[in-house]
């Protein structure tokens, strides 16, 4: 008997992922900058939506405040790199900024995890929302953080590579790393524990799952990867204010992308992000006023028609077809 929690990684999926990755890597050579920017957004926000799922994908601990970690990463790196000064090469400053952002986010996430993971369900969601608000307000109102006036970031570049392509590759890398972390997590003991916590936390505890520890690991890991996303995002913007990185929309997007595609998977949030970014950037590119309204309509449609997302919809169709086949065979 094999571990029933391990889904076999099919050769088909591995091969198609590898091909997709190769295609994605060489795309900057053929695409127009505008289309590259659209793909940039898909990889950046898709990667972050996947990182949101480290905790929210397996359990009902749905964070409504993950923008806190985008902002935390962005401001930690921006202020540290400003302090380092222009004498140091921008690329080295980015590396230092990444390091410091991860260290700070790690510390903050561990501290906040203790009280906030004691809250369940909607209380956790609201707690995270408040946490993000507090950090945002702090960055805006304390002068040392310069959130109100804004902070500039060094312009990172590589010889012979356009800035659009460079950030495209960085975001792609983040996306791939987060996907791999998610898959590794799902196949690990921690992932198994998290799935159980999502089903019934008390029973999980009863059967010996160290629920507190597993939740904390997933939360901190998620926070750190989001923070890295925040650092890269800030550098791609070149200039950040509180309003650009501490945005409720960022938090909501991570949830909407997951819900649209299918929570608890890698493909789900990636697909959800791709659809939403495509629709809002390309289809509605000239109708920005309708953007938020459309997000609302899509959200209502998913919740009522496909609560398990598009992946869930496809899976249940497939299962129904298979079960009727078995039915006729019997």
């Amino acid at each position, binding site marked *: *008997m094999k571990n029933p929690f391990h889904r076999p990684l099919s050769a088909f999926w591995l091969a198609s992922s590898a091909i997709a990755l190769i295609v994605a890597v060489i795309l900057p050579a053929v695409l127009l900058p505008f289309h590259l920017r659209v793909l940039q957004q898909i990889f950046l926000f898709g990667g972050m939506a996947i990182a949101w799922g480290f905790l929210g994908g397996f359990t009902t601990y749905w964070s409504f405040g993950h923008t806190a970690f985008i902002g935390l990463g962005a401001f930690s790196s921006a202020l540290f790199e400003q302090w380092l000064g222009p004498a140091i090469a921008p690329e080295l400053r980015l590396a230092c900024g990444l390091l410091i952002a991860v260290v700070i986010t790690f510390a903050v996430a561990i501290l906040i995890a203790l009280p906030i993971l004691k809250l369940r369900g909607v209380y956790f969601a609201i707690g995270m929302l408040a946490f993000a608000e507090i950090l945002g307000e702090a960055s805006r109102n304390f002068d040392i953080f310069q959130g109100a006036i804004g902070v500039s970031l060094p312009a990172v570049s590589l010889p012979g590579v356009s800035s659009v392509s460079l950030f495209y590759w960085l975001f792609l890398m983040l996306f791939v790393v987060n996907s791999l972390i998610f898959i590794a997590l799902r196949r690990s003991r921690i992932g198994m*524990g998290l799935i159980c916590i999502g*089903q019934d936390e008390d*029973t999980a505890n009863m*059967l*010996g*799952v*160290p629920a507190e520890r597993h939740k904390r690991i997933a939360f901190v890991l998620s926070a750190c990867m989001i923070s890295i996303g925040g650092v890269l995002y800030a550098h791609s913007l070149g200039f950040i204010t509180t309003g650009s990185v501490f945005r409720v929309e960022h938090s909501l997007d991570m949830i909407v992308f997951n819900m649209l595609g299918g929570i608890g998977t890698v493909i789900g949030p990636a697909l959800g992000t791709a659809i939403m970014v495509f629709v809002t950037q390309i289809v509605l590119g000239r109708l920005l006023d309708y953007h938020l309204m459309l997000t609302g309509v899509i959200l209502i449609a998913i919740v009522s028609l496909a609560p398990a997302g598009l992946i869930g919809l496809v899976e249940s169709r497939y299962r129904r077809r298979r079960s009727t086949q078995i039915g006729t065979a019997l």
Partner: protein
Amino acid sequence: MSSILSVRSLNRNFGGLRAIHDLSFELQRGAITSIVGPNGAGKSTLFNMFTGYLRPTSGQILFNNKSIVGLPPHLICGRGIARAFQIAKPFPQLSVEKNIWVAAEFGASGYRDPAAVVEHAIETCRLLPWRHAEASSLSVGTLRRLELACAMAARPTLLLADEPCAGLNETETREVTDVLLEIKAAGVTVLLVEHDMKAVRRISGRVIVIEAGRKIADGPPSDVLSNQVVIDAYLGSAA
């Protein structure tokens, strides 16, 4: 041989209510012992303290001669106490197999090969036809056996069974008690809380009667269940 569980002058108050009142007993290794008593006598409170969900107000609980008071539930599970609930609480959207696997994987710390344990639990608890079924689709009797299977797969040395026969018909009751006997035969000590006196008589070697948090009788089922104090307090004169 030393006792596996030792309860010493245990007290638990809820506000002004004394749910458990100076309770002491020792549990013999390898036997099935039943705790009976009217609803509200403190049986569930007792189980909640044994599994770390409630802290005693005072007194000691020793498991294998070590205190377990104040330990969190997952560590107590790791030491070897498992519990099957009266109202079965499986992971609803996971299959029977997965439910049991989790218990095997996390139950006893440091265990490396859950597969054999899972197979054994599925067979002993007669769950083979349902192994791929979602837990939420099971009937009450099957669910109760799934609870026992999970508790077994955690490889406990002490199993706390909380009214495993409540609401079951005679056939189902017999199936559950058979499973309990097999668990005992495998060397596991069983502490049973049950209202079904037929089941209690059939499988337990010793009965402890509690009422309003106090022990009022303790001994072999034939003696205890004909004891006048027990009949007045719990069974009723018609029994």
